[in-house]
Every structure is written in C-alpha cells, then in structure tokens.
C-alpha cells in the first residue's frame, strides 16, 4: 500500500484530475460533435493556436502562485506589451518591436515585484492596482486606437507562420511549456519558488532569499504576459487596448484546474497547459454544439466549477 502511494505521490490526485477531465471533455466532444468537425486536424490545431497566449500567461502564473503570490495585472501587461511592440514597429525594425514588447512586460512585472518583495505589500492588492493602472496606460497610449502590425516577419514568427509545417504558435507553446517545466521542476530556482510558497519561514531559515524569489516570480509573470502580448499582436496582425483583458479568469481557472495550489507550494506547468487547452476546447466545443451564447457561458461556468471543486477536494482528506 505504501509503495503504491509512494509511486503515485509524484502524480497525486489533484494533478491527475486535470488529465482525466481533459480526456473526458475531449471524448464527449469527439463523440457528440463527430459530424461537426471537432476532430478535424484543422479544428484541433485551432484550439492550440487560440490558447497559445493564454498558455504562456498561465506558465507565468504557475510560478507566481507557487511562490504564494498572485498576479492580477497580466492582462493589462499583455495590452501594454502588444501596443508597445506595434507602435515601435511602425517606425523601427522588428528587433526593436520585440524588445519593446518584452521589455514592457519585464519592467511592469519587475515593478510589481519590487512593490511586493521590497515594500512588503500584498501582491493581490499591488497587482489589483497595477491592473487598473496599466489598463489605463494601454488605453491612453494610442488613444484607444488599434495599431496594425505590418511587419510580415513579425507576424510570421509570432502569429501565422510555420516552421517545418508546424504553426509558430504551436512551437511557442511547446518552447514555453518545456522551459517553464524545466525551470519549475529541475532547477534550484524552481525548488526555492516552491519552498517560498510552501513555508516562507522554512525557506528563509534555509538560506533562501525569499524577497528575491518573490521579485523574480512577478517579473517572470510580466515577461510571460509580454510574450503573450507579442503572440496576440502577431496573430491579429494588430494590437489593441482590450487584448488580454478577458484572459484573467480563464488563465486563473486553467492554472488552478491544472493542479496549482492557490496558496502556493505546489503546482504544475504541464497541468497548466492541459488546463489552458481544456478551456480552449470548451469554448470551441460549445460553439460547435451550436449553443446559444448565454448557454455557452452557463455550461462553461458549470464545468469549470466542477473541475475546480474536484481538483481541490483532495485537500481536506
């Protein structure tokens, strides 16, 4: 009994539930939407393309939540980053655009991190405030105008291009998840993030620089949001102040369903990917089922509720 439990301890129930849920929803749609094109390669590719930016945001959030922090501002960062890249590329080359977009994300994330780690403010309140602050900045940057992105190399790399017939957004998803997983599970930094979220005092007396970890995770969140902004700008061939605005709840749900604890100390980058794909698959399948818009929202809400409830149930045992 013990040995079974031990073997499963790396993949406990909370982390398994997302895979089971994903599979269940997939099978349900595959069976009921057989004739509606759900299983076509085109549709399945669509789901990955559509969720790529959210998946990248989710990776950042796994780090923040695991360290016991939260970032509510990443949606606003996405908009600022996409607009920065688009505006810069109107006059300058792609490299400057990428630099501006990622740079904006890293800097805003570092700003959040500074306030949380060194001014000792709670990340919930800091990022709640910066969410509004940078949403306002995104709006004022271009006076609510959308900015087209005409640089085709950029839109290929971050949007509609392909490498060896694999769409670039799929490649970004794979790279993001691979790096995220490696850092999270197989580096000292990842271990220190988990320890910080699990028991900050234990981390601190073990010589881990807890404030530095807090600073880094929020900066990582900003960087991921910055990359997500570039992906949106590439995909839409334009940037707009509303980008990322509606991703907050989807991404948080994806990360929680994916087995990351809200209170820190536990998480999974791979689970977040599956969670994100699950959200995308729900959107996709419910539209293909031809439900009314209100019903789509109700069903999606109920399924997320169920998934979160099941994935958190284990906690109290």
């Amino acid at each position, binding site marked *: 009994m*013990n040995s079974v*439990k031990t073997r499963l*301890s790396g993949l406990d129930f909370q982390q398994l539930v997302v895979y089971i849920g994903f599979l269940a929803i997939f099978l349900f749609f595959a069976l009921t939407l057989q004739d509606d094109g759900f299983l076509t390669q085109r549709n399945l590719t669509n789901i990955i393309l559509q969720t790529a930016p959210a998946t990248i945001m989710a990776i950042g959030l796994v780090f923040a939540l695991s360290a016991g922090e939260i970032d509510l501002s990443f949606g606003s960062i996405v908009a600022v980053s996409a607009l920065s890249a688009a505006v810069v590329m109107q006059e300058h080359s792609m490299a400057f655009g990428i630099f501006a977009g990622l740079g904006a994300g890293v800097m805003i994330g570092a700003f959040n991190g500074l306030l949380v780690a060194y001014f000792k403010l709670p990340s919930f309140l800091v990022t709640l405030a910066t969410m509004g602050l940078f949403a306002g900045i995104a709006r004022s940057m271009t006076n609510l105008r959308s900015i087209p992105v005409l640089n085709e190399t950029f839109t290929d790399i971050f949007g509609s291009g392909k490498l060896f017939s694999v769409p670039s957004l799929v490649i970004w998803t794979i790279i993001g998840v691979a790096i995220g997983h490696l850092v999270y599970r197989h580096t000292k930094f990842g271990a220190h993030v*988990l320890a910080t979220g699990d028991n900050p005092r*234990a981390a601190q007396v073990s010589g881990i620089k807890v404030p530095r970890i807090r600073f880094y995770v929020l900066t990582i969140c900003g960087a991921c949001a910055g990359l997500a902004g570039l992906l949106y700008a590439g995909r839409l061939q334009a940037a707009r102040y509303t980008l990322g605005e509606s991703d907050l709840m989807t991404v948080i749900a994806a990360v929680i369903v994916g087995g990351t604890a809200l209170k820190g100390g*536990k998480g999974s980058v791979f689970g977040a990917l599956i969670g994100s794909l699950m959200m995308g698959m729900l959107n996709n399948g419910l539209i293909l089922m031809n439900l009314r818009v209100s019903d789509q929202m109700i069903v999606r809400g109920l399924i997320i509720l169920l998934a979160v409830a099941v994935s958190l149930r284990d906690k109290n045992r």
Partner: protein
Amino acid sequence: MTPGTNVLSLKNIHKAFGGVVAIQDFSLDLQAGEIVALVGDNGAGKSTLIKIVSGVYTPTSGEIRLDGEAATFSDASSARSNGIEVVYQDLALADQQPVYMNMFLGRELTKPPFGLLDKARMRREAQGLVDELDVRIPSAASTISDLSGGQRQGIAIARATHWASKLILLDEPTAALGVAETARVEEQIINLKQKNLAILIISHSLDQVFRLSDRICVLRRGEQIGIRETASTDKNEIVSMITGVS
C-alpha cells in the same frame, strides 16, 4: 579535533533590545559529543540565546568562539556555513514538498552540465540518512504532510545532522509529540552524541533533560543561575534554580 577543545565557547554574552536586557553575562563551553540542556521558565532567555548562537541575533557584547576561533555571524547562513544547525520548534519544513527536497532545502544538489537538480542523488542520500538514523518513513520521496509529528521531527533532526559539522541546537524537539514518538526522537538525539557533535537542547521536560543531558544550564530572567553536572544533581535542585524558590 583534539579532545578537550571546546566546540563552542560563549564568554560574557550580553544582549539587550533597546533598554531591555534579555541576556546578561552568559558563559558556557560545549565540547564535542556533549549534550547540554538549557532550562528555565518562559521568558528566561533560552530562545534568545539559541538565536544568538545561530546567528539570527548579534550579541550586544561578549565573545563567541568556535573551535577556539573567534566567530561573528552576520546572519543565519553564516552560522550554518560554520557547521551550526538548528532544529526549530516549528520544524521549518516545507509541508508539500517531498522529504528529500526538505533535506536539501536551500542547499539542493545539482549536476553538470546545466546545473539542473540532481533529484536522484538527493533522494538516495536522504534515504540513506533516514535509514541510518532509523527515522521510519515510507520513503524519502514521501510528502511531509503525509507524515506524523514524530516522523517530521525525525526529518528535521536528520537534516540538521546531515549538515552540522560541529553543533546542533534543538529548540523543544519533542514538545508536540506523544510518548512513543518522544522516545524515538530521544534515541536519535543520543545517536548524535556518537557522531561527536556538540548539542545544545532546550526542553521544558525535566525528565527528558535528565535522560539526555550531560550538563544542565539554568537561566532565570536573562541571568545565568548556574551549570550542573546532570549526574551529580537532582530535580529538586534544578527546580529551585529555575524558580528561585529554595
């Protein structure tokens, strides 16, 4: 290490917080393979003393020597790098992480060429350690939150043992444990003696103090009342030293 050399030597340690004196004129020598118990009422200054030795507090005045060398610790890390480990009352374990990651918390082993965590080796070494100290847990990969209080204390002590080269400070190691678990932890502490480590233990249980220690050092309101050989004193004497009532 030549026998007879003091592993830790505290001379005239004085610590005040603002105008409040927490420790006054405390002196103690600790030898390798020796267990000294620190006893006293709440607020007597035991925890303050532990924090001074572990580098959390800097003494206002006085001298700390390690193996005869004057030592100043700027923080907990520097005390740790000098071979001093602390087992805290709240154990300082990350509950949702596996045993082996806790064992190497903050000092994780990595492997070339990319400096990634060497989980296999950490797990192996952790397993060896818990086996050696006879901490009975399902496996070094078990999650801390699945373990009992005694098992957790065992892990905390095993971790300190693994990293300490000179001195282990134990702050109320069995306060939260039942009778059987206490007995097991005490066995472990006695085992540490054989590893030639110096041990300073805080305990409220005089029975335990008499079972484990070689000498007993009594504190009252920051003042060092006296040090007794455990073998040549009794509970009555210690109690009256603690309370100041004879």
